[in-house]
């Protein structure tokens, strides 16, 4: 092992990242298939059956309008749950110890898991995008914005899943936050509607929901319409990524949930 330290770290990172990707591909009936089925149902029920009676929204058919939100929702959920379940399983089965005893800096452990979660989020997002093409046509207006928003959102929620798993002491505790916080915020984040339809008070309340910014920035990238300023959305996402990264590294340094 006469390789340089940076090269050894790179190998360690790619080993962890590859392991994460192989994991979610190996268990695809649990990781890739369910979101594909669920999102297909969203397109059929909300987009096709109900949407045809709603008419246009923001100058687009209802199906076109909700497609970016549904794609983003699947990216967020899967980026989060991949890291939360993988890291918690590693804790539960104690094989997280393989990483703790190895010469891997904390930031690379975090990067490996977050990269794995981001990869699954983007993979599911791609599958849902393909599915959406069976229901509507999607023309991307701003490619760079679309790609950067979906990527950064996946990173952000992968970080969230990591922190969730650090604190979790049972499998129940890794489903509490997605069920009671993430899903309601996603539904209220403008996936299915424009916040301009809401009374002024609820519009202001909605602006406190970070998912609103991601959904709208992504929608802007695809359709060219948004309820918020895209620059603010990027700023919020980047600030949240910075804060969660610092918090996750602090927890790893302290050994919270993984060391005695």
């Amino acid at each position: 092992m006469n390789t340089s330290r940076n090269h050894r770290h790179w190998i360690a990172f790619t080993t962890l990242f590859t392991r994460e990707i192989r994991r979610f591909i190996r268990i695809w009936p649990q990781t890739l298939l369910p979101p594909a089925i669920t999102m297909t149902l969203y397109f059929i029920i909300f987009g096709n059956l109900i949407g045809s009676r709603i008419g246009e929204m923001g100058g687009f058919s209802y199906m076109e309008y909700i497609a970016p939100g549904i794609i983003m929702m699947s990216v967020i959920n899967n980026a989060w749950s991949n890291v939360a379940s993988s890291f918690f399983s590693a804790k539960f089965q104690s094989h997280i110890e393989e990483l703790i005893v190895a010469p891997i800096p904390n930031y690379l452990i975090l990067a490996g898991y977050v990269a794995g979660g981001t990869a699954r989020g983007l993979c599911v997002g791609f599958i849902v995008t393909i599915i959406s093409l069976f229901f509507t046509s999607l023309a991307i207006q701003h490619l760079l914005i679309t790609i950067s928003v979906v990527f950064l959102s996946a990173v952000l929620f992968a970080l969230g899943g990591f922190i969730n798993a650090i604190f979790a002491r049972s499998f129940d505790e890794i489903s509490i936050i997605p069920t009671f916080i993430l899903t309601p915020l996603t539904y209220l984040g403008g996936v299915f509607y424009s916040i301009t339809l809401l009374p002024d008070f609820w519009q202001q309340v909605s602006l406190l929901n970070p998912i609103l910014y991601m959904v709208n920035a992504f929608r802007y990238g695809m359709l060219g319409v948004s309820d918020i300023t895209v620059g603010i959305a990027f700023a919020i996402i980047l600030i949240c990524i910075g804060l969660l990264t610092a918090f996750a590294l602090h927890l790893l340094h302290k050994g919270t949930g993984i060391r005695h």
Partner: protein
Amino acid sequence: MKALSIQNLDKTYRNGPHALKSISLDVEQGDFFALLGPNGAGKSTTIGIITSLITKTMGHVAVFGIDLDQDPDLAKSYIGLVPQEFNFNGFQQVEDILITQAGYYGMPASEARPRAESVLKQLGLWEKRSTPARALSGGMKRRLMIARALVHEPRLLILDEPTAGVDIELRRSMWHFLQKINAQGTTIILTTHYLEEAEQLCRNIAIIDQGKIVENSSMKALLQRLDQETFVLDLKHALTTCPQITDIPCQLIDDYTLEVEVKRGDSLNQIFMALTEKGIDVISMKNKANRLEELFLRLVQTSGRQQ
């Protein structure tokens, strides 16, 4: 050079016991070192701190001269750990576990594959390379833990009760394997409850009890301090009372079993002569306990009384 140097290591668990009380310990490069102690003495805490699984309260740990706090990456790269409990991903295949572990230590897959093959063959697991770890027998899982710890070629191998629950044949084969890699230059630190194992394998020993080192010397010097041994004699005919033998304390355990205590260096002939005079036939004899076991119990009991 010291493979491991521990200085004033102290650990108090949050809302828990004071597990280590400022212990200091050195292990020389190339040594086969035993760290012994009763349950809860602090052995696993010590190993946990050396391997970064447990955070210390105070003190310093250096591995081959590298301070664990100052350069944890380099210090950790020298260590291979075989923990007490199985801690691999049961869904991963045996060979994958080794290649993944080697990757964590920065070994590229092109180097890791032949290395994994070599280690798995040495430990008799090569035929099981494509088997998920959870499908292995208990003994195979133990060997897999050793293989995983060795795949990155550590200079210091730490084994925390590696033969717990392992049958005698496998235990002996693991002893031979460990002796071989020690002879090749790997420093080994072993904790075990089988004191015979420590006596057979280790050159130096530390005994830890209630968070303190109560003994730290060479195995030879320690065993020389044993001043008496107990022998168990199986008798041909039943006895109803314990025979009186001058200067030799004895005890009748049951009708056919007699225990005698002999001072180190004393002849056993006088026992047999005395028994022959009394018409008692001995059909077999064995040492009651492993020599180290007797010393261990004595040291731990002494330490307990001093608390």
